[in-house]
């Protein structure tokens, strides 16, 4: 049900774009208006979500670490897994963001012959890494549609990506890797019972959406070709704020674009915000210096402190009568 709902939602989106362009001739709506709205929602929503997270106080260092913390001089500290300095935190964050260090520690828990056993579980890490890096390379590659003079590093990335020189237009390795990795990420939600149990429509929908975007892109590049110069004209029109709708671009492009707009607009409302959120992970981005630096709880309210002086003022006579020494006579 959750799977079918997400699947048909993406199919419906593709059909909306198809009908809108092919039947209703709403090229301007799907080629200009919706992309601008989607970009605005993405950027403003992204800022809103990050600032909202930023407004939550993080009063204490949360040292969920995997190494020896800074201690006596003769105990060796693990400076990356348990950093006490900013540079250590930067390295830990870089490992987390670029190589998914935490996910690498993923374990599989099983009952075997009545005993609880833990085993390695690296496939999720591998597929996740392959998916995210492919997506990034594909995203960067697409800048050739948005820049008048394509920078040489984008051409270099493209050259490396099509290095195998299979067919024409040259096959991109990332296209294959992305489709494979997303398929794995979907299948694990279907076939691993525990993962299936906790998977919601909000987990399946982004997977199908990305699968739809990638498939429409692959179809458009290798099989059912569109007027590619027209595509760049449209993209350049968008980014130079002088939108144009070239003739005869092909409906597959509008489907691709509409699914991307959906992804952009959906991004700040969904779990995809882990893109910004990973940088704000409190257990990863704080140095473990709880013993060295004092961290003041920002939501402490002013507490009236009853000092000894005030206490003595209140009870001085009674204290004298009872023979208790007082500081002031």
């Amino acid at each position, binding site marked *: 049900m959750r799977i079918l709902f997400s699947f048909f939602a993406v199919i419906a989106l593709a059909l909306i774009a198809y009908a809108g362009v092919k039947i209703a001739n709403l090229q301007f709506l799907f080629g200009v208006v919706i992309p601008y709205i989607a970009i605005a929602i993405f950027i403003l929503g992204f800022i809103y979500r990050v600032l909202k997270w930023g407004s939550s106080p993080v009063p204490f260092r949360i040292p969920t670490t995997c190494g020896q913390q800074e201690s006596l001089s003769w105990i060796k500290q693990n400076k990356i897994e348990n950093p006490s300095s900013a540079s250590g935190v930067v390295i830990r964050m870089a490992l987390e963001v670029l190589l998914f260090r935490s996910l690498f520690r993923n374990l599989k828990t099983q009952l075997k012959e009545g005993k609880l056993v833990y085993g390695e579980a690296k496939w999720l890490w591998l597929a996740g890494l392959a998916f995210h890096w492919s997506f990034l390379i594909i995203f960067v590659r697409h800048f050739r549609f948005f820049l008048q003079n394509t920078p040489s590093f984008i051409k270099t990335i493209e050259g490396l990506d099509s290095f195998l020189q299979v067919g024409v237009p040259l096959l991109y390795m990332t296209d294959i890797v992305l489709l494979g990795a997303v398929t794995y990420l979907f299948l694990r939600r279907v076939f691993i019972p525990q993962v299936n149990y906790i998977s919601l429509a909000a987990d399946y929908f982004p997977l199908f959406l990305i699968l739809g975007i990638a498939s429409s892109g692959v179809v458009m590049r290798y099989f059912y070709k569109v007027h590619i110069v027209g595509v760049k004209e449209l993209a350049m029109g968008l980014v130079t*704020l002088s939108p144009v709708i*070239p003739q005869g671009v092909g409906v597959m492009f509008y489907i691709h674009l509409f699914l991307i707009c959906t992804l952009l607009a959906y991004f700040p409302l969904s779990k995809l915000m882990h893109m*910004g959120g990973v940088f704000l992970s409190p257990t990863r981005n704080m140095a473990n210096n709880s013993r060295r630096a004092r961290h003041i709880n920002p939501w402490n309210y002013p507490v009236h402190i009853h000092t000894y002086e005030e206490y003595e003022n209140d009870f001085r006579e009674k204290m004298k009568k009872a023979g208790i020494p007082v500081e002031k006579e």
Partner: protein
Amino acid sequence: MKIYDGGKILVGLIIFIALFASPFYLNMGKAVAKPELKFDTPEIQQMEKETGKKQCVEPKEFMRAEHMQILNNWRDEVIRSGNRDEIVILGHKYDKSLQNGCMKCHSNKKDFCDKCHNYMAVQPYCWRCHIAPKEKQS
């Protein structure tokens, strides 16, 4: 609304948006001209005079999308199967060859091939082996 570690968060957001929205400011002040192809080489003019129209091996829309596939197929047929049969369309003969076929009519590589390839930042590897036709520097 107080933002904790506001400085760092702000720097991160600015870097992210500056990268994401870079096409909006990197293209500023640059003329955006779409590529215009020229079909006025002597060979094409000659063909128009003789047959009354400009005619390639396939219709324009098909050539625009699939020319690379045609070249690839020709390469396979000629190099791997030794099939060099000419293609005859409406009495006009076309060599199954990039240099002697395509570039015979489209001898203006700079105003034909390169126009779209440069615009789209496509780097076809044709000319790593083939010799591009000589043309005036213009």
